[in-house]
Every structure is written in C-alpha cells, then in structure tokens.
C-alpha cells in the first residue's frame, strides 16, 4: 500500500520508495525507511496532504505520496 491511500489519523511505517529521484528528496526531509508516518489531514480540496513524520509536519502532493510504500 502507498501513503496516499491512508485516511487522516491512520499510521504506517515507511518500507520503500517507487521513485528513486523522489526518494532522495523525501529521505533528506526525514522520510526514511523504518520511520513511522501519520496522515494529519488533507487540504480542503483533497490534495495535497499533510503528514507527521520524524517529529514535524510535512505536506506533499498525493502523487508524491504515492511513491512511498508503507505497511
């Protein structure tokens, strides 16, 4: 499952990324494999989304979240 499928309040653990280039950016921002993520909320129009990861809040577009594989 990927991160964009979660609903607000749901959590998951990052396992892998499907896009190498994007994974560098995401990891630099603290989204590392093994890290717990929680979906905080979606923007009023449903995209982008805000997640809690590595002790801070990050927002990203749904298609960017979809490269993050979680369990």
């Amino acid at each position, binding site marked *: 499952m990927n991160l964009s499928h979660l609903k607000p309040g749901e959590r998951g653990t990052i396992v892998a990324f499907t896009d*190498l*280039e994007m*994974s*560098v*950016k*995401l*990891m*630099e*921002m*603290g989204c*590392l*494999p093994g890290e717990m993520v929680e979906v*905080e*909320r979606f*923007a*009023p*129009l*449903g*995209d*982008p989304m*805000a997640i*809690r990861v*590595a*002790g*801070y*809040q*990050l*927002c*990203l*577009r749904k298609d*960017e979240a979809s490269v993050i594989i979680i369990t």
Partner: protein
Amino acid sequence: MVGNPNTGKSTLFNLLTGLNQKIGNFPGITVDKKVGYCKLTPDQQAEVTDLPGTYSLYPKSKDESIVFQVLADKGNANHPDMIVVVADATNLRRNLLLYSQVADLNIPVVLALNMTDMAKKEGININVDKLSAKLGIQVVPISARSNTGLKELKQAIANITPIATQEKGADMKVLAGGAIEEVKTLVGTDNDYYALQLLHQHEHLECYTSQYEEFETIERNHHFESSKLQAAETIARYKHLSTILSDVIEDTGTAKKFVISDRIDAILTNRFWGFFIFLFILLFVFNAIFSWASYPMDLIEESFAWLTSTGHEHLPPGVLTDLLLDGVVAGLGGIVIFIPQIAILFAFISILEDTGYMARVTFMMDKIMRKFGLSGRSVVPMIGSLACAVPSIMSARTIESWKDRIITIMVAPLVSCSARLPVYTLLISLIIPEENVFGFISLQALTLMAMYLISIVAAMVVAFVMKFIIKAKEKSYFIMELPVYRMPRWKNVLFTMYEKSKTFVLEAGKVIIAISIVLWVLASYGPSEKFKAIDSKYAQIELKQDSLQVSTLERDKSAEKLENSYAGILGHTIEPVIRPLGFDWKIGIALITSFAAREAFVGTMATIYSVDGVADNEGTIRDKMRVAVDAKTGLPLFTFATGFSLMLFYAFAMQCMSTVAVVYRETKTWKWPVIQTVYMTVMAYVASLIAYQILK
C-alpha cells in the same frame, strides 16, 4: 551561514549584521546574495554571507545549487574561511544531515543550535558538551528569537582554528571507492567526500568545466549512478547520526508541541471555513494596502509637488532646472510613491510567513492553482497585484519552482493594479450613465467590478496557456515543511519592510529615472522652428489681449507645445495604428506618456484638452473630454465604443516601466520583460480592436 529552511537562519543573520548588509548577486545566476559585516571582538570583523536555505548539498532548485558552488569552489569570490551551520534544535536529526555533508568538505565549522529555548519547552534536552565532543567542533546553543547566545556564538567564530577539527560524518569509500580515488588524483584533493560531490555536481561548477570529459569517463567506467548513491549516502548519514544522537538527545514530551498547532490547523485549514478565513484575511490585507497607504502616498505626492513648485520659484529658470525638476524629481516622485504600498504588502507577507500561515495558504490553494500552471505559492503575488504588481513580483521569489515563478511573474501585471483605478474611474464616468440596476446597484460600480474580474480571468487564461509553452528545466516538487504556528518576530517584519523598499528604490529606481528623463525630453522638446513659432504666437496674443488670464494662456501654450513636441509627433505618427481602436493622436500621446505610469493618462488628458477652445476653460477634464470631437468625423470622440476599447487597452497593456524594471531585476535577463511587454501589448491591441469594431 548554511542551514535548512525555517531554522531562523535569516533572523540570526540580521542579528549578527544589523543594518550593515548589502544585497548583491551571485555572478551569473538569479539568486540574491546577502552579505553583511559583523564585529566579533573589538578588533575582529567578519564578512558574513547568508546562503539560501537547503535540506542537503544536493540541490533541488536553482537557489539551492548556489550552496555547493560557493562551498566547493576555492576560487569563488564567496568561498568562506569558515562555515556557521544553523540547526533547529527542535528537529536536530534532520538538521544535522546537512551539517554532516558540509562538515565532510573539511572547511572549519561551528554549529549554532537555534531555538534551544523552544526545544527545552517541548521537553527536548540536548547535551551540548557531549554533542560538541562527538562532532569535534564548537557547538553553541542560541535563540535568535529571544536574542540569547549571540555573544558566545561570536566568540566561537573568533576562536575558530584555520584547520578543520570535525569528525568524519560517514565513510564515502564504501559507496564509490574506485571512482573517488580517480577523481582525487584528477583534481588533486585528499578529501573523499569532495571527490564524491564533484562526481555528482561537477557540471554545475565553472572551475571544472574544462575537465568535463575526464569526469564523464570516470563515471562511465565505474557505472556511477547519481540518484542511487545519493539515496545510499543519505541513509548512511542518518544511520551515523542516530548513533551520535542516541545519548545526546533526551526527548520527554514529543507529541506535546503539536497540540496547539494542530488545533489552529483544524480551524484555519478546515474544509469549509479554511477558504472563508483566507478570503477574510486577504480582504483585510488588500484594504490595508489601499487605505493605510493612501495617507503616506498623498503626503509624498504633495511633498514632491511642493518640491517642484518651490524649485521652479527659487531656481534660475532654464533647461537644467526643468530637467532636474520635471524630469529627475518627477521620476523620483514616481518611485517613492510606491514605497508605502511595498512596505505594507511586505509587512503582511512577512507576518503571514513568520506565523506559518502562508505555508497553509499554499497548502490549501495548490490544487486550484496547479490547474492553471501556477502553484500554491503563486496566490500571494497574484492577490498583491491588485494593489501593485511591483512588490508582488518581488514576493514571487518564495516560489521554488522556476517555471511556476516565471509564469506568476509573467501574469501578475495583468491583474488590475491601483494605478489603473484613476483611468477606469475617469473613463467610466464618461461613458457609463449614472444609473442603477435593480434600483440599488450602481451601473458604474458594476462596470468597475467587471474590469477587475476581466483582469483576473485574463491572468488565469494566460497562465494556463504559458503552462504549455514554457519548458521546465527542473522537476517541480511540492514537498514542503509545515512549520509550527508561532508569533511573528516584529523586528523581522520591520526589517523586511525596510529591505524590500530599499531594494526597490535602488534597483528599479535607476531604470525609472532614466525613462522619466527620456519621456520628459520627448514631451518638452520638438522641432525648434515650430516651438519658436508657438513662442512668438503667444507673445503676440499676450500683447494684444491682456484681458485674458495669463495662467490660461500659459496652459494653452504648453498644450500646443505638447502637441508639437516629439511626444506629440509620435502621437500623430502612431495614429494610423491606433485609429482602428477608436483612438486619435491625443489619446496616442497619453498612451505614450502612460508608459511611465498608467495614472499619467489623467494628467496628460488634462494638459492636452486644455487646447480645445470649445469647452469652458474652467471645466473639469471629464467635461472637456465629453465635448471633445473627432477632428476627422466631427462626431463626439469619447463614445461608449472608444471608452470601452480604451479601458480594455489599459487593462491588458504593459504600461508600467516600474514593472518592466522589476521583472528585469527579478529574472536578471531582458528576455522575460520583453516577452511580457510584447504579449501584453498584442493582447491589449487585439482586445481593443475587437471591442471597438463590434461596439462602434
């Protein structure tokens, strides 16, 4: 100074350097360079460069690429003797990723641990001595917000040894050992990480362009895969940092800090209320720009009028005085008049940014704006353009993606600015009857609102078209930190107001003054024989008819001079072109002078229509324009068709040299201001042509 975004790096920079700073350019690219001077000890002064905020040395935008360029190239004029890494103590691990990369470049470094007070409040305890021992450098806990630890930081900078003392962050040899060794012999360095970075980024470094082929050969021979290695490096560094931080950080209350911020978010980004609150805040800001700025603007206008008239009274009459007062001083006035709006707009922007609300606005608006080729970050510049495009284009700098930023800059001047208002009100009062629809809505106000709506729709449509034309050089991300809500730092707000106003006056000002002088020359000079004839004609009239008021005579004379000036001749020259739009040569002159500033339309009309003897000379401009007849057809000139066509022309045409100047400054090339001026003028011409031909 190097650090992540949102770490308070700029605040610290301002604290260290005070007003003793200047903004220049990094050679060749469109990134501002902020340099300041800081007294470390009574006899030591440091030159401080504030590098753009970034999460790593691998750049994702043009702004970020400057960081490695400056740190890597020893020949770079900005290459530092030492680096201060600013880290946010409330999120230390992520912040130390950049530190560990920077440290491995083997330049002496000091770590400034910012927001330590905030971290303590949140239950995060950092053992600074242990951290310092483990990293092998001086670590200074500070709080730029409450101004603590600065003295210690200055002392640490003064104490720095010329040889780097830091421990290595991660072993790079395991990643690409063979390639690293070859690069080390190629460029003559003993630094593994520097060699690895060169493999990744040598094509962005001017000093290594001559060795491009050698680098490429090494990369091919060792199957060097940039993205894969970046990912591996990031993981290795985080692993190393985790072991370092394991007994340095004690976190007792992780979740606590988000409670308040989450509650605020639940309201401000609420599905239903979010947009209403945003609209309300916008309305407030927009209203402030209009109403608060009007007092200082009136004052500035009066002061410059006073300066001009007093100057004319006391200085010896002549060409030099006229040039100084009507050219330079008038041009200066045209610049200074924008300062209140710029200062107020940037005060609000900096408050909204500082509190963290701006990040939420971009979060909410991104989906809508993306459909039109813009991004969530374009919202603020677009709204600000309702007041004035000049500060708004400057504020577009917060847009990271190059393509989104260029499109925002390109369409911002289409949004109806306050300078169009006097033109609209004059023309509307001429062509729209004072009637009400449904008994209470004024038809004139409705027309005015329609003009604003047309402008916003036009901006969106053009943005949509440009989305397909402009090719992006870099991938656009919307991965962004949503900072915790905080109180604004008022000192920062004042600082931003000062800095933006100063930049505008100094940079855009040069161009504006130059064009003002050219316009003044065009409007005051003409072929000498014609001017002599006018002089003698009015001298004779003055002798014959002393009953006529001298002031009226002077006005008629200057109007006739304007007609025969080079500007007037230009007006006659362009008449065939603007005829199909319903304009005569007089409007042509106004179009030319309006290039200085749109509101010049009203003034030019005032001067030029004083020549028509038909109207009572005491009447207002509006009355004069109403009875003005077309010299060729003998019919009233300002019909509904002409008026509407003229309004559309002012809505779309690029008639603002301040904007041209600021677009040049922001894009650092003439390409974009030229494209913008051309497309807007073509759009204005076509719109006016269609409107006039249909309505006439």
